[in-house]
């Protein structure tokens, strides 16, 4: 629920409640005041009648005029003086209406030895009309107030909360690899300014920590290269020794292989960080088809070694990309398709309609296909670093090329789509 909706809901419900209560109170107070006024008139009438009876000891002429009637009813017992609301007392009126409301004052008076109940009544119609009108005006005012309140809140909130939304957008757009701290929204509202500052400080801290971590990984990888170089060089010297026995050859070969793997692991990790940091900014227009052909020639020994049937279907496609990264991308994809293929399997490379599909007929994955592009995901018998496809994804992410893996008809398919606006397609 949006803040505005929530705020308006509470605000309007509270306003309606308060206004409703207020109106009810208002109604009763006004009514009380009006009835009280009416009663005062009746009291004056009573005083006049009592005065008249007192001085003359007889009843005055019953006078009915306009909305006021006076009646004298002979009675046996006196009644308690009281004000009542009645209806249709306008019998003496010219147009008696049985529903017309009346305010009536009853009291007893003795005149000429006879006890009378005197009824002085006055139409309440005017009072009711007045009340109705007042209530109508009040209701109108309430509606007007609520409407204005709603609109004002809406406008005000929109405007006042603008910096908040700006900050939010900044946080949402925050990207470690772009290394941009949050922009300053420049608001004059204290709360938002402190939010802004807190978020900025946080992102700066994150950037700093990230930098430290990255440098650490970078340095660690580099520092490992020298000891590896020492091990490798000592092995290179050892194998020159004519006194070395054949039983030592295998272990030495294993050490060589292990060094190779470590070196590759190191290089891949460094490469991943560098790509992630956008350190390969230089781009040039590359002919992808030519690059693929070239790469296939480079890798043909490995493909032949596994007796693979390589099929290519390459459209011309030229796109702006960093040459080194394009090389790595194709190398890793093709090498992956060769390595994890079965003996005598198929390797299909298809570059058509702005999409590159590299398929291989390797055995089914022994791990979750969703993790295929994750770091260190690899099958149990893979001699690779588990970083090759992670690098591929990192490169594709950098260029915002959608990369998908699918297993179709016994083939592992890696597909990269190159966005249309990024290349000039030339058909044969």
């Amino acid at each position, binding site marked *: 629920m949006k803040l505005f909706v929530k705020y308006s809901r509470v605000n309007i419900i509270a306003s309606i409640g308060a206004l409703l209560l207020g109106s009810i109170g208002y109604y009763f107070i006004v009514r009380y005041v009006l009835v009280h006024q009416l009663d005062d008139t009746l009291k004056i009438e009573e005083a006049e009648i009592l005065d008249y009876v007192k001085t003359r000891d007889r009843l005055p002429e019953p006078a009915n005029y306009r909305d006021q009637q006076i009646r004298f009813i002979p009675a046996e017992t006196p009644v308690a003086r009281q004000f009542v609301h009645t209806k249709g007392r306008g019998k003496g009126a010219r147009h008696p209406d049985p529903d017309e409301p009346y305010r009536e004052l009853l009291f007893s008076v003795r005149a000429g030895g006879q006890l009378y109940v005197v009824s002085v009544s006055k139409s309440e119609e005017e009072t009711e009309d007045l009340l109705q009108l007042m209530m109508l005006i009040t209701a109108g005012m309430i509606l007007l107030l609520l409407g204005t309140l709603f609109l004002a809140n809406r406008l005000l909130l929109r405007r006042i909360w603008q910096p908040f939304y700006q900050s939010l957008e900044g946080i949402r757009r925050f990207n470690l690899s772009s290394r941009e701290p949050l922009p300053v929204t420049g608001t004059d509202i204290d709360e938002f300014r402190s939010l802004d500052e807190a978020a900025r400080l946080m992102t700066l801290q994150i950037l700093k920590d990230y930098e430290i971590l990255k440098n650490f990984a970078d340095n660690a990888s580099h520092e490992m290269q020298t000891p590896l170089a020492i091990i490798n*060089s000592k092995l290179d010297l050892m194998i020159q020794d004519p006194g070395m026995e054949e039983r030592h050859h295998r272990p030495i070969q294993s050490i060589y292989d292990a060094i190779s793997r470590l070196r590759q692991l190191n290089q891949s990790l460094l490469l991943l960080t560098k790509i992630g940091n956008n350190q390969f900014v230089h781009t040039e227009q590359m002919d992808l088809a030519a690059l693929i052909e070239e790469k296939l020639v480079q890798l043909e020994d490995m493909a*032949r070694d596994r007796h693979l049937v390589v099929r290519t279907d390459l459209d011309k496609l030229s796109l702006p990309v960093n040459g*080194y990264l394009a090389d790595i991308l194709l190398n890793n994809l093709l090498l992956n398709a060769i390595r994890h293929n079965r003996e005598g399997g198929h390797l299909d490379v298809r570059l058509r309609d702005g999409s590159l599909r590299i398929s291989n007929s390797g055995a089914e994955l022994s791990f979750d296909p969703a993790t295929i592009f994750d770091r260190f995901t690899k099958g149990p018998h893979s001699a690779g670093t588990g970083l090759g496809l992670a690098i591929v994804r990192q490169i594709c992410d950098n260029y915002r090329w959608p990369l998908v893996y699918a297993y179709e008809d016994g083939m592992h398919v890696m597909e990269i789509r190159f966005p249309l606006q990024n290349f000039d397609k030339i058909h044969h």
Partner: protein
Amino acid sequence: MKLLIVEDEKALADSILHYLTRESFVCEVAGSYVSALEKIELYDYDCILLDISLPDGNGLQLLKELKANHKSDGVLIISARHSIEDKVSGLQLGADDYLAKPFHLSELKARVAAIIRRRHSAGNNVIRLEEIGIDTLARSVEVSGRPLDLTRKEYQLLLYFAYNKGRVVSKNAIAEHLWGDDTGAAASYDFIYTHIKNLRRKLIEAGSRDYIQSVYGMGYKFAL
């Protein structure tokens, strides 16, 4: 041939020294920026193996000094930083080649020999291995005067052996030399065997003696 090894890691410098000295090379080692600077001011070297990260200075600075003094020493940078920027800036400063750690000594030897060959090749660009002659300029091979037709890989292989003659060269070193770093650590090195077998057959058929020996399970040796 005089070489200077500028490397602060003593164990590594020793290995390099050991591997290269057996050839006609005279090697000296400088373990620090200061001692290296002293040496390059005093002597001329055919090739300087230069480690970029020295405890008391940057190897690239040394390279600048060298060029400022109009020294014509060949320079091979050996660096633990596997970065293109370092490579580019090193080569722009006038280094002849760049080799990232860790490397195979046979690869180092081949690079050093190539640098020296390029610098001293005036009129002589043929490497002689008994009856085999490798013309590094024309990239051609002849056996007893008759030209031998080799594929690119076979030629590279033969040249690599020539630079490391009499040494056992590991399969990993050959694979990385011929197919690059990215293809190393392959599940099998059978494809190396194919190329070696072909090269060997071609050489023998051309009348050369069989110099290429297999060192079981580990590598090969070009034994003259």
